[in-house]
């Protein structure tokens, strides 16, 4: 499979399933049918668990073989947490943390 076809397939799958999730409630619950409790339970708890999973996913490739492999990421994650607890401003935390990381990987050579 060529790279281009693979990429188009991936984008197609993501686009179709994202749209499906957005349209489903409007298609299924058009009447006043009650929402199953297990669904609304998962709806409350899953976003928290998934976000934690995504953080681990982002950090999956850090290596503990040497200090360059993990210290910049760890320091920058801590920086993002502190910046966010301090200002509660999403953009500020993202830009600050990314700048910190970009700086560290250049300084720690």
């Amino acid at each position, binding site marked *: 499979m060529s790279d281009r076809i693979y*990429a188009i*397939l*991936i*984008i*197609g*799958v*993501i*686009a179709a*399933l*994202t*749209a499906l*999730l*957005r*349209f*489903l*409630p*409007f298609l299924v*619950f*058009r009447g006043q049918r009650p929402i199953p409790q*297990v*669904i609304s*339970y*998962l*709806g*409350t*708890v*899953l*976003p*928290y*668990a*998934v*976000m*934690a*999973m*995504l*953080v*681990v*996913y*982002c*950090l*999956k*490739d850090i290596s503990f073989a040497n200090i360059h492999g993990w210290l910049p*990421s760890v320091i*920058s*994650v801590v920086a*993002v*947490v502190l910046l*966010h*607890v301090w200002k*509660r401003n*999403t*953009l500020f*935390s*993202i830009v600050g*943390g*990314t700048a910190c*990381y*970009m700086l560290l*990987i*250049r300084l720690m050579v």
Partner: protein
Amino acid sequence: MTKTMAMAFQKSLPVMAGYMVLGIGFGILLKDAGYGFLWSFLMSLTIYAGSMQYVAVSLLTAGASLITVALTTLMVNARHLFYGLSMIETYKDAGKKKPYLIFALTDETYSLLCRADIPVGVDRHWYQFFVSFFDQCYWILGSVLGSLLGTILPFDTAGIEFSMTALFVTVLVEQWLTTKNHWPAMVGLMSSASCLLVFGADDFLIPTMILMTSLLLGMRKNRVYER
């Protein structure tokens, strides 16, 4: 109509900065992965889901299987089901604009439109339509700009990929600070960390999703979880 557009534009302004910056970050990442501005335009036009598009870049680079991609999309975007549920009434009579309103219901657009505080003297559904439309324009504009910047930037963009990590850490911290119940986040953290150790970096997403959904369902049965 001009008034409706102007009011919608004003309402959408807070999203502009966020979508432009995150969009630019996404465009640069995608460009670094070897996909130019046509790809970021295509993705922002058809997918239009910020965090998933960031994840998509790394799935593309990793050459992930379609099944992994499908399951990841379902998990990452599951929250959209619940935005939809709470907008069923609001969008009930939107007519021809309804499909686009539903398609464009991102986290940010939802946060602008969920409170249904429509200004007086504007057409409700056109107002919602323009808010949604302007938001998507910012996102597309940002991501295409990012791709172009990624091509011409005179400096080395190594490390820009951390913006994805920073985005998710920020959302996680925000969630942590606004809820009393930290079990779901802990379950997510522990499931993914242990699956990462057991299955390795390339294959841990699917086991993690199965494990944490089962654990969360089990906790519901045992009433560990209280609202």
